[in-house]
């Protein structure tokens, strides 16, 4: 059976961009600051349009570079600037045991395992690289197709299931084993 999963798609040149994780994480850090400042004004002027604009921008921009699946709770900086939703099993906490000997995906043999890539790239990331060991909470499926940038500023993407949050010593930040 040929596999034509949305997770398998890659745009030309996107792998080259992702292979510069150190630059990407710096861009991310700056963008977070910039967007956090700009967003309140955006929200005031046109709350509904700004959501729509951001969804469009993310779908196109992150869609091109990361084959973004619009989960609405972006953790790229915690996962070696590699999108974990491109894993056909949607794993957010590392590779499964099905990785092939050549580092390729169990499900999509012609693609590298995104977690093999994530691990390598995280090693080159001075600022956020260590976050790859963070225990990521379950995905909030209700955020699908919403803007992860707005969710980040609003704090929506930080809300974990109440039981999860109660049990995690670091609250919404998740667990780290060291």
């Amino acid at each position, binding site marked *: *059976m040929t*596999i034509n999963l949305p997770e398998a798609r890659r745009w030309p040149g996107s792998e080259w961009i992702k292979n510069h994780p150190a630059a990407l994480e710096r861009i991310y850090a700056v963008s977070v600051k910039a967007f956090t400042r700009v967003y309140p004004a955006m929200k005031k002027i046109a709350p509904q349009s700004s959501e729509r604009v951001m969804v469009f921008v993310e779908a196109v921009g992150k869609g091109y570079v990361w084959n973004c699946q619009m989960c609405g709770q972006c953790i790229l900086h915690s996962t070696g600037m590699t999108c974990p939703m491109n894993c*056909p*099993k*949607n*794993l*957010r*906490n*590392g*590779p*499964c*045991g*099905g*990785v*092939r*000997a*050549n*580092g390729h995906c*169990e*499900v999509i043999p012609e693609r590298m*395992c995104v*977690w*093999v890539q994530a*691990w*390598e790239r995280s090693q080159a990331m001075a600022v956020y690289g260590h976050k790859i*060991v963070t*225990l*990521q*909470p*379950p*995905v909030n*499926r209700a955020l699908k197709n919403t803007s992860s940038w707005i969710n980040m500023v609003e704090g929506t993407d930080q809300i974990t*299931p*109440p*039981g*999860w949050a*109660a*049990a995690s010593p670091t609250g919404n930040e998740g*667990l*780290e*084993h*060291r």
Partner: protein
Amino acid sequence: MFANSRLERVLRSGRFAVTAELNAPDSANPEDVYRNALVLAEVCDAINATDGSGANCHMSSLGCCALLVRAGYEPVYQISCRDRNRIAIQGDLLGAAALGVKNVLCLTGDDVTAGDQPGAKRVFDLDSLQLLHTATIMRDHGVFLSGRKLTTPPQLFLGAAANPFVPPFAWRPERMAKKIAAGASFIQTQYCFDVPRLRTFMQRAVDMGLHEKAFILVGVGPLRSDKAAEFMRTKVPGVHIPDAVVARLAGVAPKQKAEEGKRICIEIIQQVREMAGVAGVHIMAYRQEETVAEIVHRAGLFPRHAVGAHREGHVNQHAVHHASGNGAQPAHHAGQYGSASPGMASQGELQ
């Protein structure tokens, strides 16, 4: 002591543990489960019930576990994230605990494309770590993920899988550490046919002190022939078999191949037994359960002394002294051995 689990008791006693995999039948007849279990029960401390292994449809792992409990055996309930969402999984954890299941192995699961129904919807709502942590929350905090309170939390001995034999190799020990941090008290690895690779992995694990935080059981199994080995390493996700092993099987006469496969398995068991940090073996003999007893015998792992409910006191004190260099008692597990449930039979009584 989390669950008054027999497997946990054996592991804590410091004795080299043996678990085995039960192949769930394509049948609605309980006798088929009992028949497969009977040949395993005598020679192992717990029986793993697979959850749609290889994404092929079989009797459910919960169904198998319920039958195994009814027969007095000690099942390990395997849960994969492939087929059920968080609502179903949390419900099943309660159901399993109520049925008498005490051990749970939390798995990601093979992809649907590996099995006989590649058109099925893949769920993967939680991943294996989120599943582990969810089960831990339910047990230790007595709540669902939603925060809603449980009247009686499930008492479970939680485990996870590790695969030291596939990339990214450098991350594999870290990933196991992450699973242990998320709540795994025991680890069962993928099939080991590459002992040097395992040694590298275990050295790192021991350096990180992981063998003191969780019991690590190494997966082993007999290969029937070089053809079977070739099939497994190309078709079964995550199985790594070095060329040397396949060549060794190819080099013997057709009638000797099965025997050679068993011999390889026994040699691997003997090697991993000497390895620092290894607490036991997990024998996976797909559709050849009858060979497990022979392997256990020939590897010198028999008799399996029953660490039964009524004799736990002295067994556990003596066994610690006789522990065959399998590392220290896990520190954070230290505590009183809970009293046994009245219905629990020792293995001797089952036969």
